[in-house]
């Protein structure tokens, strides 16, 4: 006999959890919608009463201000959204460089905490404790003051070969762009492909037979050789735009302003201390038995760190490392206090000149949200690749 399915009861009573859940959600949505409506309504009323204009149309108007430093030339006649773009490139410039430098420095210091030498251990510990406990804004301000006070004025700059260091920043020669560089770029692409293909082959061979071929240096060498070949084929130009001492400032050449240097140094040193802690925590989380087994196999400490501890520690390191990268990107917004024209500084100027506070601030928040999302996605992809495939 087929089992009787009892008739479905109508669950409209307070006793049913599903029903209660529905009511709670309805109430929550009504409250949130109410609050949002209240805020939006007030904003519109206020803006109308005070005659403040709104809208994003100001983005196509001419900016009317110059930007002190940028990756590519910017003219004051260009529109506001192009000024914002310059701000975004400035932010990314300091963020990407800062992330790379901070990771290298942080990893070295984190690994240094396990060094055999007590002096090195103590130095790394004091570095971490010192830079972690001082606010980053204060560090940025201090670096800026130190750079502008200690460095000489431009007419008496310190010169090392073609490099000049002064209050005007770090001036370096840049190569003059001609066909040779273009051909070098053309050579770079096949070089990258070749290097990547070689590395794949070398890794396969290592995993199959255990023969440790060079898996990093040789591919890098291949890439380098390919670009050099391209450069040579393009005419091998060697002309450099060298900086020369002008009347009051260093002219020509490329320049890194003291604002950029101060932001970069402050952010790098601050974030490196946090990354060092993260790396230390990651290495400490790997079982001690692994280190002992590695030394039993005859690996020296360098190989032990590189081949055994770090790959296993990566699992634990990557999520907090992502957090630190995001923090560094967000901390770069403090550059507005020392005169580096990042996106917050340019939004500030635009806000003052057009009065569109709401629009400018929301643009800044949008830029940071997109950057954060992008970084998180990238690190999540790397995380899933570095994850140890368990049975």
């Amino acid at each position, binding site marked *: 006999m087929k089992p009787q399915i009892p008739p479905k009861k109508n669950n409209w009573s307070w006793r049913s959890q599903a029903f209660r859940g529905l009511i709670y959600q309805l109430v929550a949505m009504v409250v949130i919608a109410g609050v949002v409506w*209240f805020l939006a309504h007030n904003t519109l009323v*206020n803006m109308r*009463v*005070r*005659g*403040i*204009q709104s809208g994003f149309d100001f983005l196509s108007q001419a900016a*009317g*201000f*110059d*930007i*002190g*430093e940028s990756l590519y030339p910017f003219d*004051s*006649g260009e529109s506001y959204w192009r000024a914002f773009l310059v701000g975004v490139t400035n932010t990314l410039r300091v963020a990407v460089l800062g992330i790379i430098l901070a990771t290298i420095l942080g990893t070295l210091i984190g690994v240094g905490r396990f060094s055999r030498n007590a002096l090195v251990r103590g130095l790394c510990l004091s570095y971490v404790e010192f830079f972690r406990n001082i606010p980053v804004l204060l560090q940025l301000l201090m670096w800026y003051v130190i750079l*502008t*006070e200690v460095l000489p*004025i431009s007419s008496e700059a310190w010169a090392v070969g073609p490099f000049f260091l002064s*209050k*005007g920043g770090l001036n370096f020669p840049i190569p003059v762009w001609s066909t040779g560089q273009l051909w070098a770029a053309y050579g770079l692409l096949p070089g990258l492909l070749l290097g990547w293909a070689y590395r794949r082959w070398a890794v396969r061979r290592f995993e199959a037979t255990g023969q440790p071929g060079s898996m990093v240096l040789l591919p890098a060498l291949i890439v380098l050789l390919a670009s050099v070949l391209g450069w040579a084929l393009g005419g091998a130009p060697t002309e450099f735009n060298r900086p020369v001492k*002008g009347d*009051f*400032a260093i*002219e020509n050449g490329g320049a890194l*302003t*003291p*604002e950029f240097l101060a932001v970069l140094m402050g952010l790098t040193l601050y974030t490196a201390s946090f990354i060092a802690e993260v790396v230390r925590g990651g290495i400490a989380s790997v079982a001690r038995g692994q280190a002992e087994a590695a030394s039993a196999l005859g690996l020296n400490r360098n190989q032990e760190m590189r081949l055994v501890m770090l790959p296993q520690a990566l699992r634990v390191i990557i999520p907090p490392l992502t957090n630190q990268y995001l923090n560094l990107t967000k901390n770069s917004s403090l550059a*507005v*206090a*020392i*005169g580096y*024209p990042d996106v917050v*500084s340019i939004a*500030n*100027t635009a*806000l*003052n*000149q*057009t*009065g569109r*506070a709401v629009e400018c601030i929301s643009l800044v928040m949008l830029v940071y949200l997109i950057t954060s999302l992008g970084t998180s996605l990238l690190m999540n992809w790397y995380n899933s690749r570095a994850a140890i495939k368990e049975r």
Partner: protein
Amino acid sequence: MRISNLKNVAIVAAVLGTLAAMPAHAGKTLDGIKARGQVVCGVNTGLAGFGAADSNGKWTGLDVDICRAVAASTLGDAEKVKYVPLNAQQRFTALQSGEVDILSRNTTFTLTRDASLGLNATVTTYYDGQGFMVPVKSKIKSAKQLKGQTVCVQSGTTTEKNLTDYSKANGLNIKPVVFEKLEAAENAYFTGRCIAYTTDASGLASTRNKVAKVPADHIILPELISKEPLGPMVRRGDDEWFAIVKWTIYGLIEAEEYGITQANVDKLKTESKDPVATRILGTSEDTGKLLGLSKDWMANAIKATGNYGEIFERNVGPKSALGLPRGVNNQWNKGGLMYAYPVR
């Protein structure tokens, strides 16, 4: 509608905690001032000669004196002012949002500020222009020699835009170093980060005399690259308050034109037979009633701060620390631009 608005306000206030919102009465600025018993005046964070506080918190300056005169004419007492120091970024939003009643902060009147920020420009109290300051050591004698140089400037001011326009017009390719705070821009100039510092000429004089270690080591270049009419601003939509501020300032300027000073205002009020003086001081006509103020509105203002000439002399004149000449800020019949509309 009003009740639900009140309920929403109550919920928000309760959620936001014990630090209660400062109660303010609705709408009109004058009603708010009378209820509060104070004029809230937005001033500079520290510009000697225009708006600066000493370490005891006493505010002095040309813009501060205008606020005191407005308070005297509105409330009868020049000390009933609350000074809110504002930097260049906050000043407009503070005025728009109602945090301050009047923005007396060496602000230039421009079309954009008048039209798109919801503000009204009242009367120019100081006709200024933008200039450059360079160290004497640099041997720069003219602004045209600043080709390709770094210039320190504060962000969010007309200064930034004027610098760009001047640079473009003369093909100078100037590199601006932009700072959020005025002090940071000045600091950067004095440590040598930039070769020049630019702001209004009056600001340059103030900075050179008060902030530079050795004022004689810096010179102000002769070129004035823009017109900067400075004066107080009020919110749009309140014509009553706008009229009060405007006519108080005109009253101060006309008082100088007709020889009414802080010293003789009491005597002139009781004894004078001059029709202009009696009109301004309220003995013959009650112009104050038309503005919603008392009969002695202008007499109180002049007694508190003196006429425009005395305010100028005290704060920025040739005998003061800034040592600026009257120049275009003189009366219209002495070759300047100060032309008061008749207070009648």
